[in-house]
């Protein structure tokens, strides 16, 4: 039985943790949240120096040639730090998409720049408050040109390249495709949109005859997005677990210090049991995420189930940990000066990023049915 990360992976984790504790404390998150920057550029630069963005990119394309397990430990630490950087958009999603389905030319054009952080990727699927489905997606791709509006797009202002879910003609599921767009070319207009977590800026992107190429074959958008999301779900889960643990310890530390009625509040069962419940949810999520990581790394047939389970558990854990961290803090926890807010905001951002818990539960059971029928 060897159901754990390797010593090397743990060392990498420790390294990233130290780097972020040093370069990305909560005051950096606060700065980005409160300010105009799209992300913490100096943190991003430091991460590039450590080669983090190229973790799962083959050496031939400028990466370090490691794999999903290394991404998992990085993701956990980014979550712990509430890091205000476009890592999930660029690495979990766009890098993976290009790596898997890009032509040789597309890979050569983008992977080295994604690896060294000089390019930032984003995945653009949403077109407002509804699920992006063949019925609802209006951004169109035809004759190498993209037209229409995507909103919200995570890290959309900072991004240099986007993978976009487009309607490429036809009907039903086959009408959707993925397209690759260099956002620095013409025909791309971006405006910031207000969200509950301004520590990760989101944009509305309007495409007006923007030059684009298909990625991974016409009409395969739904299928590819599902595949992409399975791997990403595992990474998001680790990020959520990191966040949940950070929120848990923040609440616990406060509970050890804050007094009410002559005792620290951490000696009251209402607080103790609440924090114990956070711990329980976080451990359930971690165990599910480990299996997800293993399946992701070995390309196991169980990945779709494992990824959905990890995603469901981790979303639940982070939502609960972040909200009960505020509650444990009491009044001070609801003030702008408190750091509790960062996890509360981020938990919702991550929960909705690649489909919410209801959608993932539905996926999970569909996949269980399929497995049991097989």
């Amino acid at each position, binding site marked *: 039985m060897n159901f754990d990360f390797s010593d090397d992976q743990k060392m990498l984790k420790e390294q990233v943790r130290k780097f972020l504790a040093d370069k990305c404390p909560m005051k950096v998150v606060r700065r980005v949240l409160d300010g105009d920057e799209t992300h913490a550029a100096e943190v991003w630069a430091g991460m590039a120096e450590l080669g983090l963005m190229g973790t799962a990119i083959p050496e031939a394309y400028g990466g370090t040639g490691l794999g999903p397990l290394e991404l998992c430990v990085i993701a956990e630490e980014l979550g712990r730090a509430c890091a205000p950087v476009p890592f999930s958009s660029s690495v979990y999603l766009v890098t993976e998409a290009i790596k898997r389905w890009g032509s040789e030319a597309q890979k050569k054009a983008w992977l080295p720049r994604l690896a060294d952080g000089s390019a930032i990727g984003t995945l653009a*699927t*949403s077109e*407002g*408050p*509804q*699920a*992006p*489905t063949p*019925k*609802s997606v209006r951004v169109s791709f035809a004759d190498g040109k993209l037209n229409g509006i995507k*909103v*919200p797009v*995570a890290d959309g202002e900072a991004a240099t390249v986007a993978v976009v879910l487009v309607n490429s003609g036809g009907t039903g599921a086959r009408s959707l495709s993925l397209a690759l767009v260099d956002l620095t070319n013409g025909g791309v207009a971006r405006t910031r*949109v*207000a*969200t*509950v*977590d301004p520590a990760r800026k*989101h944009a509305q992107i309007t495409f007006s005859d923007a030059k684009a190429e298909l990625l991974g074959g016409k009409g395969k958008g739904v299928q590819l997005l599902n595949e992409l999301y399975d791997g990403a779900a595992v990474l998001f889960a680790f990020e959520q677990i990191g966040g949940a643990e950070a929120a848990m310890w923040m609440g616990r530390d406060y509970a050890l210090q804050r*007094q*009410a*009625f*002559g*005792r620290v509040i951490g000696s*009251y069962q*209402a*607080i103790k049991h609440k924090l114990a419940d956070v711990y329980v949810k976080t451990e359930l999520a971690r165990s599910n995420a480990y299996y997800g990581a293993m399946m992701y790394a070995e390309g196991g047939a169980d990945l779709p189930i494992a990824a959905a389970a990890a995603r469901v558990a981790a979303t639940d854990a982070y*939502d609960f940990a972040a*909200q009960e961290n*505020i*509650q444990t803090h*009491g*009044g*001070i*926890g*609801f*003030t*702008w*000066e*408190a750091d*509790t*807010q960062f996890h*509360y905001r981020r938990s*919702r*951002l991550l*929960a*909705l*990023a*690649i*489909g*919410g*818990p*209801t*959608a993932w*539960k*539905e996926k999970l059971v569909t996949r269980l049915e399929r497995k049991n029928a097989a």
Partner: protein
Amino acid sequence: MDFNDTPEEAAFRQQVRTWLDANATRKSDDKTSIRARVDDPELLKKAKVWQDKKAQAGYARITWPKEYGGLGGTPIQQVIYSQEEANYLVPLGFFDIGLGMCIPTLMAYCGPEVLGRYVKPALHGEEVWCQLFSEPAAGSDVAGIRTRAERDGDGWVINGQKVWTSGAHYSDYGIIITRTDPGVPKHQGLTMFYIDMKSPGVEARPIKQISGAANFNEVFFTNVRVPDSQRVGEVGQGWKVALTTLMNERLAVGTPAGGVDVDELLELARDTELEDGPAIRNASVRGKIAEWYVQSQGLKYTKFRTLTSLSKGQQPGPESSIAKIVAAPKMQDLGAFAMELMGQAGIMTRDVPGAGAFQQQWMFGAGFRIAGGTDEILRNIVAERVLGLPQDIRVDKDVAFNELGKK
């Protein structure tokens, strides 16, 4: 069983309506007109004018005796007035703390000269009052306060900090609880004063909340001088005085008016497409709507039960204590769930269904679970007052305040 007024209540309602029709503008169904009104910077001025008008008609505090400018009416008459007034475009909310908590406390402990000076201006909206109890280290445990009042000649000097004070920046007066003797157990060394908020050394700063709004203040006191004549109750009896005030507060805290609830969620679910069809056709969405509906209706009819007691001239039962325990988490959860229905766009605070109101619910819900008694404190209260279960062990009971936390 019915929801009808008694003949007396109906007559009073008619009388109130006639007066309101003559003195205020009825709301249209257009909600934006109300909103616009609330953002009006001149609101306080207008509120003072309206308050004066009400006071002249006897409607400013219906249950107060006539000698204090009230109507000598019943609690149910007060409810009827408030129900009716809510249908008119009038600015409210500035005087609730003063008239609901501060002045009743003065009435209980001060003599005729104080009351003669302060009751009428408060009732007519000329002077606004605030309540200065909470402190950074005294939240759920209100008696843990550290703000000191020290004897100085025939007066007192106050130093310290209060937080979560509503309206401190526009208030004229406030009642403040202070520690006058740190050498005795914490409930015993407290003394209450009323103070002029314009005194030198009083500084109110807004507290910015997670939501970005600043509904409260922190108030700093630096060598603020208060004459002994402004003491409310005996020296060392401040806790007893505060309980009078807080008892009135508990009656006032309830569900915040407005905001989106289950009706709006149902509408959202009807208008929103999930991956596999309209959200409203999803049984899991339907299950949640049903659960929240049952909670909303439960609270509504619980209130009706309370009103029935008032209408019969009885004391309301303990059932009203459940309102915030239910409403606050619902607000947070319902908001979060609605955001999820909107997909990735659920994090957007504009250009979404409800114009960001669901996002606000989710955000404010986190605060509402804390303000005016945390979920945990409220459950203690229900367990102790309704179910008769004992208080938790109090280790600070017989320990001098300045010895607390030293062992």
